[in-house]
């Protein structure tokens, strides 16, 4: 039980997927302009990432095994694309507003490197099924947390008096770097 809790805390804060592994920067920069879409994007990514890490663990263990391990990346991408397609239809049916807000970023979850990175890290660190699910959930929660924090900051940055050369994406990049430094403070929280 304690082990599971440590996985969640570790992936949300210590080894945050965006801030310390520098994965998933495309949605991190692209969907963080406003707070509301970033919450929706975080929820969609959480759903996809948790399902994807569970499904890819099952595929890697029972379908591929040691003989077909060279198919790992290929099959993971196929599974992720399938899950994203399913999520897209599901959101279109249940929440047309969120569907319009997410727009192009929803299909782009397919190519989000965080979503492929976490299943591959699962294999590398030889996680079991429950551990894989928790690792995916924790990674996605960390991604959502950072995305929401960053979106809140960017909304304030829009109103701030910023020197002209830094306006827009450049100040966002600087802010992201400072956030990454701040997250380094969590290193050593878990041995």
């Amino acid at each position, binding site marked *: 039980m304690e082990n599971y809790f440590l996985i969640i805390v570790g992936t949300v804060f210590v080894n945050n997927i965006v801030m310390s592994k520098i994965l998933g920067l495309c949605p991190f920069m692209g969907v963080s302009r406003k707070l509301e879409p970033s919450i929706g994007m975080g929820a969609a990514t959480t759903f996809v990432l948790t399902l994807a890490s569970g499904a890819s663990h099952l595929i890697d263990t029972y379908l591929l095994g040691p003989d077909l391990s060279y*198919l790992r990346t*290929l*099959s993971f991408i196929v599974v992720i694309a399938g899950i994203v397609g399913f999520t897209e*239809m599901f959101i279109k*049916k249940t929440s047309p507003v969120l569907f319009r807000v997410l727009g192009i970023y929803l299909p782009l979850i397919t190519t989000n490197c965080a979503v492929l990175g976490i299943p591959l890290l699962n294999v590398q660190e030889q996680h079991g099924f429950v551990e894989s699910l928790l690792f995916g959930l924790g990674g996605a929660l960390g991604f959502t947390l950072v995305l929401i924090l960053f979106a809140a900051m960017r909304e304030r940055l829009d109103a701030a008096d910023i020197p002209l050369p830094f306006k827009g994406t450049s100040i966002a990049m600087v802010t992201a770097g400072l956030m990454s430094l701040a997250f380094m403070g969590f290193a050593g929280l878990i041995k």
Partner: protein
Amino acid sequence: MLNAILVMAGIGLALGGILGWAAIRFRVQEDPLVDKIDAILPQTQCGQCGYAGCRPYAEAIAKGEADINLCPPGGEDGIKRLAELLGVDPKPLGEGLESKPKSVAVIDEDACIGCTLCIQACPVDAIVGAAKQMHTILPDQCTGCELCVAPCPVDCIHMEVVKEDLNTWKWRYPIFHMKKVP
């Protein structure tokens, strides 16, 4: 080698099955006609047609509940384009609705008491001001829907016809009158 092909084919088939099922289970009914009608309507959101805005009016037209001649801001031109899209005959603008030249609302700023009633009435947020402060209208944003005229308690809002100048002039549709050829 054969195993690899079988495994990938199996994954593909399973996912294809799930997605096919989801496409039927989560199908969304969308009427493309509503979007086309909505694109023709002038988006003044004035409500003179009796519906809450342009989109609800477009939905009503698509369902066949509303006539195409209820939109004064769209004018004759809008009716003609709607008739073309829907394959029906164009009609004159409905009773009680008249086509007016394009105009914008103007606030007489000396008389304005700052009651904010017109701000609440404006569907396009074209009026700026605050309580007990003088209000004014942004002419670029004003759609000329006249919704702000009625609520004003001191009658300080009137409509002014937009004069034609280089910025507002629009090319007119060519109209040829039919003549008997001798």
